[in-house]
């Protein structure tokens, strides 16, 4: 059978037939084709870049290069999980200032003077239940040269292998998010490859202050520098909030290159210049490919479990038991076994609040501070799933079992394996 070429184009202004306009766009049953191929006035469109837009897809078999679930590598991108509580104060002059929302931190430099009250907010765009609010409570009106204040999230390299970074078929990175900034003008975002010392930056423009806007940006693929396939920190995604000249005096680095400090945040406005400023963000998604897909709403439980890989705490008020079983190893040595709800990234750091608790047993121990508990050993370095904590106290009877119990309000036992 020989090839057949249809050359009898039907030129008409109605909605039927096949129609080609002067730009070469072809419409089928369309009044005026708006893309390279337009069927039924936009019901099915193929754009100039080969992007297909379809109103509804019904299929018995889909083969996708972009995965249908777990596209979003950012955890807690919708800011629902707040295990540390909300609000939470963060000083910009510490290396890892944990925000109220799990997985998010503010980092700057020792000379940064801004202070934020971070909280889970109900001020959101439609379709989201929460956002992260950064309320500037101490302003930094004159940014020192070495101050780079940024909101960020850190990643394990093993969670980013799908981007094929460092290979000949490396893939693009598309970031999308909703933001409400108090400042108009240029804001910088950045991807940072820790393993190979490389970075790429981009900007988005806020045209109207204190107004939600949806931002998408596709970063180029990087064929240089593979990310380690392990549980250590390999990668950081950054939203800049303020940038001193050390970070902004060069030319913005919009392709993957060896990191040059001066090229990281060129043009960044100062979001921290007034205590009137509130910066909101939610719906953060980083995914493989050139197109931003709708935000992937994972369940609260699924997102919580993901966050508990990095941080887990037990909280309670006076008289509430922790469900952490313990026993009196002697009359003065109390040992408790904590089981983590999900295996953690690494053996966690333990810290307790300066509030009272007891070993609740047939013969209760004397009260002791949660902060007096210390590590006594852990079960495994390979995805740790539990830890022994112990304390020296008194009034116990050796051999009795029981449970740790808070004897003051706002008690906390924290386990942190953050990156």
């Amino acid at each position, binding site marked *: 059978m020989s090839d057949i070429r249809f050359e009898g184009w039907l030129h008409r202004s109605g909605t039927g037939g096949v129609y080609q306009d002067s730009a070469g766009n072809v419409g089928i049953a369309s009044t005026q084709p708006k893309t390279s191929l337009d069927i039924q006035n936009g019901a099915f469109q193929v754009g100039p870049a080969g992007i297909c837009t379809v109103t509804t897809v019904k299929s018995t078999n889909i083969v996708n290069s972009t995965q249908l679930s777990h596209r979003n590598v950012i955890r807690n991108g919708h800011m629902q999980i707040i295990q540390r509580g909300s609000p939470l104060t963060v000083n910009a002059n510490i290396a890892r200032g944990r925000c109220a929302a799990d997985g998010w931190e503010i980092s700057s430099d020792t000379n940064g003077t801004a202070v934020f009250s971070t909280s889970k907010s109900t001020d959101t765009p439609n379709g989201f239940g929460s956002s992260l609010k950064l309320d500037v409570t101490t302003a930094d009106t004159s940014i020192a040269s070495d101050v780079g204040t940024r909101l960020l999230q850190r990643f394990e390299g093993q969670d980013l292998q799908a981007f094929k970074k460092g290979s000949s078929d490396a893939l693009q990175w598309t970031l999308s998010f909703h933001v409400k900034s108090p400042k108009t003008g240029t804001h910088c975002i950045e991807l940072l490859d820790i393993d190979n010392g490389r970075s790429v930056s981009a900007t988005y423009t806020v045209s109207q202050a204190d107004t939600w806007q949806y931002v998408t940006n596709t970063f180029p693929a990087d064929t240089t520098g593979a990310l380690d396939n392990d549980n250590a*920190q390999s990668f950081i995604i950054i939203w800049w909030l303020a940038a001193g000249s050390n970070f902004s005096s060069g030319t913005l680095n919009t392709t993957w290159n060896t990191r040059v400090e001066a090229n990281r945040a060129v043009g960044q406005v100062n979001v921290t210049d007034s205590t009137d400023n509130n910066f909101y963000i939610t719906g953060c998604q980083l995914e493989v490919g050139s197109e931003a897909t709708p935000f992937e709403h994972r369940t609260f439980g699924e997102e919580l479990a993901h966050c508990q890989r990095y941080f887990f705490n037990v909280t309670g008020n006076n008289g509430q038991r922790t469900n952490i079983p313990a026993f009196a190893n002697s009359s003065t*040595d109390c040992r408790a076994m904590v089981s983590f709800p999900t295996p953690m990234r690494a053996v966690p750091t333990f810290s307790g609040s300066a509030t009272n608790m007891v070993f609740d047993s047939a013969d209760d121990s004397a009260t002791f501070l949660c902060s007096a508990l210390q590590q006594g050993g852990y079960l495994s370095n390979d995805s740790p799933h539990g830890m022994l904590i112990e304390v020296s106290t008194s009034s116990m009877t050796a051999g009795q079992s029981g449970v740790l119990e808070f004897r003051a309000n706002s008690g906390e036992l924290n386990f942190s394996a953050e990156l």
Partner: protein
Amino acid sequence: MAWSQTKTYKLCNSISTGELCSVMKDNGNGRFLSIPLDEENTDYQEYLAWVAEGNTAEAAD
């Protein structure tokens, strides 16, 4: 636990076994971090960097 105000870190033995099992860090706000001897733990990495700068933790009780 007894704590010298001149040190940031203090080595810590297990109460029951007496063996070194963690490093305590005074956060200065009534909070103490009990840091495991795990090189994948970022607090322990920070401690090792502090030691590499020539500092020495307070000995365990």
